[in-house]
Structure formats: C-alpha cells, structure tokens
C-alpha cells in the first residue's frame, strides 16, 4: 500500500524519501501502524510531535493501534507555540 507523508516544520536531518517540501510517498506491506511509520522517520526526540491521519488528530496513545490503509495521508508536526 502507498502512504503519503507530509512533515511540517521539522528541523534537523531530512528523513530518506522526504523531499525539500517535507513530502514523500512510501510503500508498505499491509498492517503498517502509525507508530511503525513514525519510528521509521527517525524524528528528533527532544520535543514531542503530533500526527494526523487524513486530517484527523491521532493521540500518541492510539498510534500503536492505528492501522494505516492504502492511500492514507499522514501529517506530522511539532506542537509549536505562536508569537
């Protein structure tokens, strides 16, 4: 299955498969979880990050149980504060 990933406002090393605009498409076997996808992105761990699947917020506690489907769009961003 193909999953579209959009990383917003990430800093540091760009994960493999993600372009300059923070976007990439990945192929996975069926059954891939959201937490599995996020772990593969090797995001920085010195701040939390939030995730949406098809625009819906997925709490960290539900990432393990969220099974991705073909065509899903995953958006990842830090919980920034404005100014």
């Amino acid at each position, binding site marked *: 299955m193909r999953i579209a990933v959009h990383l917003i*406002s990430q800093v540091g090393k760009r994960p493999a498969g993600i372009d300059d605009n923070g976007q990439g498409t990945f192929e996975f076997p069926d059954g891939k979880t959201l937490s599995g996808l996020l772990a593969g992105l090797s995001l920085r761990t010195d701040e939390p990050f939030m995730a*949406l699947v098809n625009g819906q917020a997925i709490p960290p506690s539900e990432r393990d149980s969220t099974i991705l489907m073909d065509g899903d769009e995953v958006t990842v961003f*830090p919980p920034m504060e*404005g100014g």
Partner: protein
Amino acid sequence: MSWQGKIIRIDLGKGTVKSEPLNMAWARTYIGQRGLGTKYLMSEIDPACDPLSPANKLIFATGPLTATGASTGGRYSVITKGPLTNAIACSNSGGQFGAYLKLAGWDMLILEGKSPKPVYIVVENEDVRILPADGFIWGKTVWETEDMIRAKHQNPELRVAAIGVAGETMARFACIVNDRDRAAGRSGVGAVMGSKNVKAIATFGNIGTKVADGKAFLKATRAAMDKLNPHAARERLSKRGTHSMLDVTHAYGSLPTNNCRAVQFDGAGKVNVAAAQKPRRSDGRASSQTNKACFACSIGCGRIATIDPEHFSIKDKPQYKTSLGGLEYESIYALAPMCGVDDLDAATYASALCNEHGMDPISFGASVAAAMELFDVGAITLKETGGIELKFGSAEALCWAAEATGTAQGFGKEIGLGAKRLTEKYGHPEFAMCVKGQEFPGYDVRAMQGMGLGYATSNRGACHLRASPFVDDFAHIRTEGKAEIVKKSQDRIAAWDSTGVCLFSGNAWDVSDLVAQLDASIGGGWTAEQFLETGEKIWNMERLFNMKAGFTAADDTLPKRMLETPAPSGAGKGKVNELKVMLPEYYELRGWTKDGEPTTQTLSRLGLA
C-alpha cells in the same frame, strides 16, 4: 540580588521625577515584571477608572533576570488598565529597551497623571529628564522618533520605546514599539501612553546588574544555555521563526480565516514560510532575509524582511525599499488568512506599518477582518469606507486600512475602535472575534478546545500567551483534562512572565531550570512549588483587579461563532467549542465559586485576603 532596588516615578501633571526604593517585600513575593507591576498597579489605581484618564497609570517593569546574562533575559512588561478591554493589561516585549532601563539602574518606571503638553522622557543612568515633544517628535512615526531622539541627544545607543500617531490619537489597540519592531503589543497600552501625552521613553544604561550568588548563577545559566541551544524548537524558531506555525494550523484546521468563517486557508501556500524564503522573480531576493535576536537571546526568532520592490504597496515609497522587521505567526495570521489575503508582500507592508505607526497587528488585522465582514453583509458600504472596496481577500484594502488606521484618517479611525466597538456600532456584535474586547490570536478554538478555555478565562482578553494547551489540543479534540492543563499553564506562565526571560525559553527549560537561575540571582531559596504558587497568586490578583473593574463570570465567554457554528473543515470539522463543559471544572480547580470568584479560603491560601 539582581533587582536594582529602585524605581522612577514620574508625575506628568506636576512635571516631577522622583527616585524611590523598590518595595522589596513585594519584589520578594511577586518577583518582577508582570507580577510586581500588577501588584503596584493594583495598589495605586482604582480598577474602575477610565483607562484613558489621568487616574490610570502606566508601569514599565523589568524582571530580576532582565539584563543579567541569563539566556533570553531582555524582557520588560507594560502594565496598566487596558483601553481595548477595560481589564488588566500586561504586554510583554523584548528587544533592547527593557535591558537598558535595567542597566541604567532601575527596576521600573511609573508614569502617573497627564502631561499638559506632549513630552518624552530620557533615562541615562541616574539622569532622568522630561523633555518637550511638541514641535519635535509629536506627530512623527515610531521610526522617525527613534532617529530624531538619537540624533538630538547624540547617543546612538539610546533605546527608544515610542508610540506612533495611532497611540497619540488613542486607537484602542495602539501599542508601544521599542527598537523599531519589538512591541508591548496587546490591549492598547500605546493609547494609554498617548492619553498621558507621552511620546517616547529613551533609555541608556551602563551601570550593570549584580546577582546574589555569582558562581551559582554562572553554573545555572550555563546549564540552561546548554539545554536551550541544541533544542529543536530553538533551531526552528531561529531558522524559520514563529511564522512556521501557519502550516501547522492550516493543516490542523485551526487557522482563523475570513474572520473565522473558515478554519483553513486556500492561499496558505502563498503566505507561509516556504513562500517567504523563496527568491522572487523581480530582484532574486526572498521576502525573509535573516533572523534577529533580542537582548541576550540565543534563539533569534525575529525576522528581517524586504518587500518586493515592484509590489504595488511601495510604489513611490522608497522608505520601504529596505530591510524591515518581518512577519511573525500572529501578524501573518491576522494580516493574511484572517482577512482572506494571500499576498505576502501586502502582509509584510501592513506589518511594517503596524510597527511604524504603533499598532498591534493582531487586533488591527482582526478588526479589518470584522470590517470586511460588515462590508460583506452590507452593514457598511462605500459611503463609510470612502470608496474603498473593503472585501475579504483584497490586498489593496488591507494596505489602505493599515495606513488609514495608523494615521487616524477617515474610516481608519473606525477600525481603530477595535472589532468589538466597531461591530457594535454597525449592528453586528456577533462579527467581533473577541474575548473581553480583545481580538483573537491565530487559533480557531473549535479544533483547539483548551485554547478556547484559555481565551475565555484570560485576564487580558483573548490571548495565546496566557495558557499553553498546544500539545494536548493538537492531539485530542475533547474537553477532558483541559481545565487542569489550562489552569496549570496559566500559573506557570504568570510566574515565568515575571522573571525577565522570554516564554520561548520554556520550549527547552523546565520550571526547575528557570528557578535555579532565579534563585541564584535573587536568593531566598526558591523552589519550583513556590514559583508555581506565585504564578497562581499573580493570576488571582489579576482576577481581583478585573472583578473590581466590573468583570463577572459572564465575561468568561467566546464569540457565538465559536460556541454555535460548527467548524466547516479540518480536524475539528463539525465541532463547536464546549466551553460550558470546561468552565465549571476550571472554576473548581481554581478554588473559585461557580460564579467565578475566588473563595475566601483561596485568597487566604494565596495571601491575597
């Protein structure tokens, strides 16, 4: 100890300057800046007074960590009764001005009464003078004022905080701008300065500051810096600024658009950070040129920008074809999506005019958006606007409004009333996206439930810097747990805002990191628990001020649109803000009655009885 131990008191009516000792008992209890300034204001004015009358006072307060060398320790606050809200106003600014006031040997400066003629004030160490502004800088822009004061006093190191014509004419959201593009922005503190006939305050100091325990202070500040500097949030703020929030709120569906008719903006890609950093065709330069830091700050979230030299807004205006203070998230939200404008250069120009004329870009932009909605429904017409098509999405109308409002011309004077008064005047108060009369920052609160509670209960009206429910709000669109998150973050922020460091340091620091620096600078054996309880005390003191000013639980609310009209898209699609569910729990956690008043027990526990 890192308090200087003395304050400047200026009686503008009599034209007198007095040095007086800082009330050290209050300083040890309320720390500085927001807490200490509020304590002084609460003790010296009647909260029911007219905020634009001589009975109001205007307090410039530094914190004990201001100008000590602590990372981000360059902050000061302006505390007064706000003319936008009639509530307590406390606006926090960075830049260099506050640090130089402290380095001149002063913790605070209090302006009282009203000068019979326009004046400005110069503070050069011990030397404090009131000087005539009439025929000199009265009527000038903020930028001209800074240049003229420096030239006249032959001191390029003078740090100037000034009002523009917006403040002189008492636009309700006029702000005080220091160092050209840093501002004590919210609640109309610039209008209070204008009401007192004070154009500017210029500071220079080289007296320095002392801390209680030098070795402990160096150890604590070094450890804190080592934690802050490599942090991802610092790197992001440095490289992209707060502007990068726009992609987040757009994706999440909490980006106020077209006066909150929408929560996502089709033109987001034209006004986001990527657009600002992309070289343009005309001159090969990007809008966003580089970053800028305040005193002692290693984050550097501020932006330096240029406007496309071919853009219509600056045709025949060579003064804007140079580097200017750039867009932050709150300014781009208010000047672009909120008004439906997808023109980055127009937003940069309008932001520059806010700095130049001394206007809060949040309230200005949201007031223009409210005016656009009035125009959209026919409540105002070309007759009122003087022929301007004040339509959502019009970059030309936005740029016109910035100039007209900043210089108090024509319908600009109406926009300067703020969204609440403007929409009431034209029969549609439901178009005001305000709490307690203060316009929304850049978060629609149907997808961000906790932020809605934060806006509703903020003592200075709608504000994104009074509570910090971001992490939970971006994970859960629910009401459970929000009251506790909002209450605890309000207390933490109230204390943090009293120290002299920037809230953004909190991206990397825990309370214990800040308390270690604070204790080394002022002594007293501070603990994290004591620090947080101090924040709670400050919050309750502000609440008491507002109660005496006439506010009740009925004012802890949100616009109808947030409570009754479901979000049209995004993660919160179909949701409204469930304030009525969260508010009773919040009052209970605060130790307040169901009518939102602190109980006698709560006031006794906090030493406020």
